[in-house]
């Protein structure tokens, strides 16, 4: 009975707030009318923005993101960085009509603290990050008078956009349109009163204030459409178009998609103790049989993230299955996210479920906890990666390694190779590939583009996972839950997370964060030698030498195993370059393992973590070399076709 009461209380506490009750400051509210010309691949839009300065000082200008200009030409900062990136490699198949643009035709003040004025002629492009004069992704509009903190203005903005062939998960392929980063979006005035409105970079995308979005989208007649929020209205027009109105409160972005091919599926998430969520899936026809897999991934997140961190509050969520090679898969927007699956997709390949878990997870780490992705990309991607993989481990144990052959179309399941949380989830190989290229505390948009992935995803996932193993999951869960509750619908910085971590754990985790976040310490512990000498009948003195090969310091345990099967654990603070354990025992030591429980997942070399006096390297080497030889022989025979 008490349990039922508590569950009811939890549901009540997490229900949608009643009308007028605001979760967020709602200082950036958009009312948008936009029309898609599917033939010309253009958007014609007009938005009314009601903006309140909630920053720490007056705003003498307005700054807007014009994301679509990132693909206006090959000289934008995004395109220049793409040349250095493996994430969005430069494409050589671009044709003239594949580029994008967003051109503002008018900007007017129509109400609020400042008198009505036409600001159109005052628009300039600025490049606060790199001074690139060819970059037009940030627009500045000087004001005749500053807008003081707490003051509100209303702006009317009209624009026309060319929709690109997809870049960075927005654009058009065939008759599939995915529109993200598509409207003029105001930047953020920070606590010091300065604008935080970065150019569009190849690996960083979001930072915006919360508000209410009321958007009317006109598309060709009866084309199915999905968007952030819920549909409020739909009407067919006389010009063979349909207008959809979607509405959502307390979000910081808005995305939508339309295609005549979409199949629609719905399901409901229900879990004791959590509010129900209506799930809507827009599916490609060739993936009709995979609908449940999308829902399953989403359910996993709604359940585990809901239980671990806090309930999903919006009551509805939309999942988009993007068109093939649209490059719009795996992307998060408020109350909507894209996944991406394959036509031939065995159940053992959990990519679709994992992606759904990850992108749904961004509703917490990006959507509700609105960190600055331009600067602190790890706060949404890294924390979410860690949590997503943890949820995977709970729900997707059936995963196996799958490799695709023949142009990536034909999957092959390795039944013997189980999905591994550290390898396939946290991405330890990716982390190791970019160990020292950059320091995580450097603003994310300044990271070396090639290694931004490891810094945003795998490194934080691994150091969070390391903390979990060191502190225990209950502590870790409490830490993240506290951080979530404290910073939900706000803009936390890394220091805020570290503060919560210290407070909740009751420990000074600063030295650890100094190494993994403020530095690029390399962790590598190893056992150098195990030796024993006889000291008489049933008496041996064993020496175990343990080394720290990297510059990273972490307290470790050493497990020593003796010939009689007994074991002994020794602790080492890990500070020195080496240490020796001299142990008297009734039998000789046969092996030693540093960090035997693999708590320090950041260790770059696990193989040297152990030493045995009875190595089986010959058997292992013979086994794997023989398998490799078969592969080589087969390769030779394949080539023999040519003779």
């Amino acid at each position, binding site marked *: 009975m008490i349990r039922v009461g508590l569950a009811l209380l939890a549901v009540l506490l997490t229900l949608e707030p009643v009308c007028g009750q605001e979760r967020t400051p709602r200082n950036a509210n958009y009312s948008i009318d936009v029309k898609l010309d599917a033939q010309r691949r253009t958007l014609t839009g007009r938005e009314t923005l009601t903006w309140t300065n909630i920053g720490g000082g007056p705003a003498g200008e307005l700054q807007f993101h014009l994301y679509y200009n990132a693909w206006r030409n090959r000289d934008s900062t995004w395109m220049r960085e793409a040349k250095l990136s493996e994430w969005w490699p430069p494409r050589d198949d671009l044709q003239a009509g594949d580029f994008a643009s967003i051109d503002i035709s008018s900007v007017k003040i129509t109400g609020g603290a400042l008198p009505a004025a036409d600001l159109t002629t005052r628009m300039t492009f600025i490049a606060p990050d790199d001074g690139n004069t060819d970059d037009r992704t940030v627009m500045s509009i000087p004001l005749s008078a500053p807008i003081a903190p707490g003051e509100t203005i209303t702006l009317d903005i009209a624009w026309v956009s060319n929709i690109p062939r997809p870049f960075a998960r927005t654009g058009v*392929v065939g008759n*599939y349109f995915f529109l993200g980063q598509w409207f003029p979006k105001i930047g953020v005035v920070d606590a010091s009163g300065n604008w935080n409105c970065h150019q569009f970079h190849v690996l960083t995308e979001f930072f915006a204030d919360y508000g209410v979005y009321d958007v009317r989208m006109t598309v060709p007649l009866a084309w199915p459409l999905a968007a952030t929020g819920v549909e409020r209205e739909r009407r067919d027009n006389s010009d063979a178009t349909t207008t959809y109105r979607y509405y959502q409160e307390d979000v910081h972005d808005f995305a939508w998609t339309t295609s005549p091919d979409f199949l629609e599926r719905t399901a409901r998430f229900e879990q004791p103790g959590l509010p129900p969520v209506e799930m809507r899936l827009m599916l*490609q026809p*060739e993936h009709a049989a995979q609908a449940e897999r999308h829902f399953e991934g989403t359910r996993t997140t709604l359940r585990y993230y809901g239980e671990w961190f806090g309930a999903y509050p919006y009551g509805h969520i939309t999942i988009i299955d993007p*068109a*093939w*090679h*649209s490059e719009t898969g795996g992307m998060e927007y408020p109350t909507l996210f894209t996944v991406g699956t*394959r*036509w*031939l997709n065995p159940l053992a390949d959990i990519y679709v479920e994992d992606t759904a878990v990850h992108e749904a997870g961004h509703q917490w780490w990006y959507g509700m906890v609105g960190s600055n992705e331009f600067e602190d990309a790890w706060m949404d991607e890294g924390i979410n990666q860690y949590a997503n993989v943890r949820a995977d481990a709970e729900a997707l144990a059936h995963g196996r*390694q799958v490799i695709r*052959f*023949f*142009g990536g*179309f*034909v999957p*092959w399941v*390795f*039944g*013997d*190779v*189980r999905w*591994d949380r550290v390898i396939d989830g946290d991405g*330890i*190989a990716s982390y*190791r*590939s970019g160990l020292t290229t950059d320091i995580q505390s450097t603003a994310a948009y300044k990271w070396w583009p090639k290694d931004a992935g490891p810094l945003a995803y795998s490194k934080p996932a691994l150091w969070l996972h390391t903390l979990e193993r060191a502190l225990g999951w209950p502590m870790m869960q409490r830490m993240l839950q506290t951080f979530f509750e404290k910073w939900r619908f706000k803009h936390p910085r890394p220091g805020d997370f570290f503060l919560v971590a210290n407070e909740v754990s009751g420990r000074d985790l600063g030295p650890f964060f100094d190494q993994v976040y403020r530095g690029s310490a390399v962790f590598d512990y190893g056992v150098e030698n*195990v030796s024993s000498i006889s000291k008489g009948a049933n008496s041996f003195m064993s020496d175990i030498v343990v080394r720290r090969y990297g510059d990273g310091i972490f307290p470790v345990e050493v497990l020593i195993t003796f010939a009689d099967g007994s074991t002994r654990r020794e602790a080492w603070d890990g500070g020195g370059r080496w240490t020796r354990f001299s142990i008297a025992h009734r039998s000789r030591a046969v092996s030693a393992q540093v960090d035997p429980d693999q708590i320090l997942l950041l260790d770059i070399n*696990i*193989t040297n973590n*152990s*030493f*045995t006096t009875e*190595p089986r*390297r010959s*058997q*292992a*080497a*013979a*086994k*794997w*070399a*023989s*398998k*490799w*030889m*078969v*592969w*080589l*022989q*087969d*390769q030779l*025979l*394949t*080539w*023999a*076709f*040519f*003779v």
Partner: protein
Amino acid sequence: MNMSGQRAEGRGQTAEGGGQPPSLGYGALFDGMARVAQSPVILGCVYLATLVTAVPFSMLMRDSIASHLGNSLAAEEAARGFNYRWFIEYQAQAGELGRTLRTTIIGFAAVLDNLSALADKEARPASMLWLGAAYLLLWLFLAGGILDRYARKRPTRSWEFFSACGVYFVRFLRLAPVIGATYYVLFAYVHPFLFNEIYGSLTRDVTAERTAFFYRLGLYAIFGALLIAANMTFDYAKVRAVVEDRRSMIGAIAASLRFIRRNFSAVARLYATNGVIFLAVLLVYALVAPGVGGTSLRVWLGFAVAQIYLLARLWVRLVFFASETSLFQERLAHAGYVASAEVPLPEPPIVEQVVG
């Protein structure tokens, strides 16, 4: 045996077998299988050649793995089953060749990996390419002896076999630039044209992966057909070079093309049947291919199964040769028609004394 007479006979026959009644080609196939079965030593020989070529690199790989594992306990799990963490660590830290130790070497994935790499023109380490070149050279050397043996359809002594290898190796070396150039054009120009330009253009606005997959299958079929056409041409060029003792390799290619044109149906059917046998071998191996393996016994059992598969692959390649030889002889010559060069043996020292 009057070889010159036979050559004259061969040249005099201009019909290129075109006047023969159509056959299903199975006769040549079964005859080819019989010829391969009659000379198991050849199968053993090419298997040994493959093994010997692969062993040195495998020894290097073994040493590299052993060195990486050192005295680590990681070896226990790697020996017992699959130590995923050690595996990816080794990949990350190994050299160019070592990085090819991927999960794709396990079981039937190895076959898919190699076929896929061929179909998609994926790069392999330079050292492997050199090894592959050496292996192809070895095949080129053996091809003359193999074809000579199958054409004769009777046992030959080893000196006869190797003398035929030597004689035709020189000729096939002259054929090699043509073979190389043809495949170079196919992979360097035709492949990118098909799979980058045509495929890119066909799928540019395609939103369904299934459609793209079928486009790709179609392009694989086209590219495969070109490879098969080249392969068939060079196979029959070699067959004709050996059976008719041709010295001009350009002439052998022209003769091969003539033969294929005049007997296209039978040639194509034979090739397709051989292809089906090849696919059947792959299918069987897909069903029985060993996985990661556990104890030593299972590992070596798995290795033995894989070697049987490789033997079967080699057998298929030899059946290709033998059945093509058989078909050619059925259509244009006969078993006794073989005109390989006679190797003049030196006189024994006793001759000096006898003559003296």
